[in-house]
């Protein structure tokens, strides 16, 4: 086996720039998709605990449908199948503003929204029922009670499992390479194609993912320390 290592391709010239661009795209797509996932997860998670059967059913249908289908299929679905049904002006806009990026954002966001929903639902269900009753008895409507009391408490309870989901989302953003989003894994492959230095490129990509995951885990543990409600959550529980 005579394989010559040339590590400097990782930081020299064009290929180093590709890696950096890939990292930036991965962070961009993950961040936007994360916001979408959180919004959808909050909405559907709250719906699943609502006192109206129909609302609970809508929330459950969303979750069960989207999380039981592979993310890759959703990528293809949002990128190839949906755009022809969109209004012409939106189609034109997408053509000019990297359609694959937005398809990737929607695929990641909607898929992980369904997974966030489960986390948020379990957070809401961990809150004693008396909180909602107390909020309503002070004259808040049910919407106000959710917005002002239930959701803020639930968010503070779910930090550890939400960290897990955030890391899953970051790792799953690599699936977007299949529809041509030039994220980190895509660039890793591109470097491999152009320089035939598979080992160096893959090591670099892998290390960047590991460092990102570690950084997010550390950041979230700081957030958890600040926001944990004493007595309501065993520290470290739910982490795994």
């Amino acid at each position, binding site marked *: 086996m005579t394989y010559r290592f040339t590590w400097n391709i990782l930081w020299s010239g064009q290929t180093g720039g590709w890696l950096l661009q890939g990292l930036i795209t991965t962070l961009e797509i993950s961040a936007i998709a994360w916001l979408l996932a959180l919004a959808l997860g909050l909405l559907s998670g709250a719906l699943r605990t609502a006192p109206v059967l129909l609302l609970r059913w809508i929330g459950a249908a969303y979750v069960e449908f989207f999380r039981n289908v*592979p993310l890759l*299929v959703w990528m293809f679905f949002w990128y190839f199948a949906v755009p022809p049904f969109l209004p012409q002006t939106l189609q034109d806009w997408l053509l000019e503003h990297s359609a694959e990026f937005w398809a990737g954002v929607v695929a990641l966001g909607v898929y992980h929204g369904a997974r966030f929903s489960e986390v948020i639902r379990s957070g809401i269900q961990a809150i004693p029922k008396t909180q909602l009753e107390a909020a309503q008895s002070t004259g808040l409507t049910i919407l106000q009670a959710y917005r002002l009391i239930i959701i803020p408490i639930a968010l503070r309870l779910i930090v550890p499992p939400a960290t897990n989901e955030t890391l899953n989302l970051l790792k799953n953003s690599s699936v977007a390479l299949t529809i041509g989003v030039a994220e980190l894994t895509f660039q890793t492959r591109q470097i491999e194609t152009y320089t035939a230095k598979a080992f160096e490129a893959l090591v670099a990509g892998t290390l960047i993912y*590991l460092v990102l995951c570690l950084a997010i885990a550390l950041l979230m543990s700081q957030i958890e320390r600040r926001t944990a409600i004493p007595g309501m959550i065993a520290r470290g529980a739910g982490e795994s």
Partner: protein
Amino acid sequence: MDLRVIGDNFGFLIVQGFIGLGAFAGGTLRLAIPAIFLGFILGTFIGLARLARSRWIHVPAAVYVEFFRGVPLVMVIFWFWFMIPTIVGKSLPEYSVALTAFVVFEAAYLAEIVRSGIQSVPHGQSEAAIATGLTRNQTMGLVILPQALRNMIPALVTQFIVLLKDTSLASIIGYVDLTKAAQIVNNREIRPFELYFFIALVYWASSYGMSQLARRCERRMNPTLP
């Protein structure tokens, strides 16, 4: 909407793509079923290693688990796709590459299931087994693991569902699973909505069906659950 594209290619999509019988060495189930069994065997060893007393055994096992849980599966598939030819000296068929990648990757997740399954068996069990004169290996093999396995079943079914969905990623190295089969048909027919929605339904039906099964078997084992 033209559903004929599904009817005309139903055999190719389901028999070839999902089950894996036909001209291509493909199939979602043909990859997922061996992968979960082999992954479970490897995962059991790693899970046991994480519980070993020697630091030289449990630290490498922990590193293995944390490493693979911190890297995207797509990356791991590429690792094996590029590395196996370099190490073996010749390129292997997609099936072997995909199976190796899935076994190695899933073993990290399965090891955690095995570990928590073993830890869920009360400590008194192993103390009692040792008190009756069983060796440590006998205790693990005859007393702890059988009970742990029973506790693990729901988590294993859940992991199999995850794996079944993840096998769609094998299509990026050209393995003809359900997703790739739909891509092949779509390249010819240009009916993305019908095809991708159809395979979404197939994945949905198998995943959701199995998750209901897991829930039912969990309830049977633990009747106090809601």
